[in-house]
């Protein structure tokens, strides 16, 4: 079974909306979580899981799958929402988010969750693993791809640039990396914590096929994934730079003062769900 068959009649808009809803429900369980990040990246995840990637929900370790690495492990709440939507994690489990003994801890870890391919939490590791996976897949003559999501804060880590250089060196055209440029990290706006622009030029100069899109415009994101996939066989890794808006889809969270942990009061989870409900796509 491929994704295409499950996702047949459901629009990408609706997938993204469902992912946002699962994430808010998980946030509500704990009264906290990286909800603003989950909302900003929902469109990218919907496109990855319901347009681009090949996998079998009932067999998350299927050898022929595309791999997805969550380098920014604190975005686990977002990936769990996508894994729930994809049928890899049962929806009932969102009730256990972040609780003792849950398979959905707040930080993504490979040994806890089906479909979670790496242990995150310590940032800047994913692209190195991706390089190894891409080399391994090529050795195995597999046509599977490796998708890696990482964050703009991770651009500060030297290891990220080591991996970027080596992916081009090894012509890893089976690698599609997506960086979430939400312009936020722990101490403030990413561009003021450590200037990283002009990002497209930098990554292009490292030898990557590089696209920059509005990460909350599903059309743009879908086209970017298609173009990146078309790079297979052309000898270059692909980078999608996705500019996103924290809190996307819930207007009062979009408008809230930007912070690494955006504050959500106890009563606001219901309001967030209601605001989302008003924007429910077909």
């Amino acid at each position, binding site marked *: 079974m491929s994704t295409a068959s499950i996702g047949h009649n459901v629009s990408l808009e609706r997938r993204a909306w469902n992912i946002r809803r699962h994430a808010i429900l998980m946030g509500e*369980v*704990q*009264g*906290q979580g990286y909800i603003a990040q989950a909302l900003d990246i929902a469109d990218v995840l919907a496109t990855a899981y319901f347009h681009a990637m090949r996998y079998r929900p009932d067999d998350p370790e299927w050898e022929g799958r595309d791999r997805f690495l969550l380098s920014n*492990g*604190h975005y686990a709440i977002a990936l769990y929402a996508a894994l729930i939507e994809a049928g890899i994690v049962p929806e009932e489990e969102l*009730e*256990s988010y*972040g*609780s*003792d*003994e*849950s398979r959905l*801890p*707040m*930080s993504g*870890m490979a040994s*806890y969750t089906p479909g979670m391919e790496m*242990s*995150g*939490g*310590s*940032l*800047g590791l994913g692209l190195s693993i991706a390089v190894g996976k891409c080399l391994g897949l090529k050795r195995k003559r597999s046509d599977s791809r490796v998708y890696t999501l990482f964050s703009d*804060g*991770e651009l*500060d*880590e*030297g290891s990220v640039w080591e991996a970027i250089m080596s992916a081009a060196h090894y012509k890893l055209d089976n690698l599609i990396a997506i960086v979430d440029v939400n312009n936020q*990290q*722990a*101490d403030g706006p990413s561009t003021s*914590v*450590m200037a990283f622009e002009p990002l497209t030029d930098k990554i292009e100069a490292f030898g990557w096929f590089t696209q920059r899109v509005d990460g909350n415009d599903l059309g743009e994101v879908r086209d970017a994934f298609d173009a990146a996939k078309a790079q297979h066989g052309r000898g270059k890794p692909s980078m999608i730079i996705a500019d996103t808006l924290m809190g996307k889809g819930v207007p009062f969270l979009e408008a809230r003062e930007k912070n690494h942990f955006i504050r959500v*009061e*106890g009563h606001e989870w219901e309001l967030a769900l209601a605001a989302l409900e008003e924007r429910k796509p077909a």
Partner: protein
Amino acid sequence: MKPAATKVASGGSGAGKPRLTTSAMIASIASEGQRTKPAPFGHALVELARQDDTILGMTADLGKYTDLHIFGQAFPDRYYQMGMAEQLLFGAASGLAAEGFTPVATTYAVFASRRAYDFIHQTIAEEDRNVKIVCALPGLTSGYGPSHQATEDLALFRAMPNMVVIDPCDALEIEQAVTAMGRHKGPVYLRLLRGQVPLVLDEYGYSFELGKAKMLRDGYEVLFISSGIMTMRALEAAKALENDRIDAAVLHVPTIKPLDTAAILEACSRPGRLVVVAENHTVNGGLGEAVAGLLMREGVHPVFRMIGLPDEFLAAGALPTLHDRYGISTGAICNRVKEWLG
């Protein structure tokens, strides 16, 4: 302030709502109703910097989470945001120290000890640079899983020549340790408690001295030797054990390196006491093994036990749950001691 930070399951295991425990990254280690002080490190560093204009603050995108932002607000032009780049942080700190400044560099303990170890080893310890490394989330003080649980930082920094290693217990000790580390010329690794930090040692007329262990209470049956938050726990355990007519002493050893060998040997030489080393760290290579090695070398052989974290990757979960499970809660300490006494 944050909702549901560490609400632990209440009542039985009946049906109903999920348990509100949490594997959050940041949870307070202060128990309910405990006296606390806000951001003792940040405020003490501002004081120190007023007297010593070589002091600079540096962080790797964790200023707000290590209380260094308080220094940054007081001295914006002496504060360097290095981005989330721990190797750069410590390499640059070494360079600043070589030019005569005294950088105080902060991150989480896991990232200093794991990501940046070689940078610290070569550029700071080997060159004997005057860099102060101050790191939050020491040992098991985060429910976020192994990525944020610095269970081996003491072992790693103990193993580094030239490094002074301090594991403070409370807000009072952090303030005093900041002053002391400013006076010491050379690299220091300080385990940091941040946010609302428990205040405990003022009740014991305590003052921190670099390299000195202090007897906080005497007792003839059990001798706890402890550092960091485990001293707070040992004091609580000692109090609780009074109810079982068990008389326990607590020797607080905040400087892990250099170790106060004289005080430890003297305390362990008193006959008839069960010696229990308690540490918020893996049992591999921390205070427990440091004390054990000392006693073996010096031929002092009390009945010796260790309380510390097991040699495994710890779970994600709520801190109270994890402290119970891994045996470093006050209750768990009392139970172990009673077992050992038979």
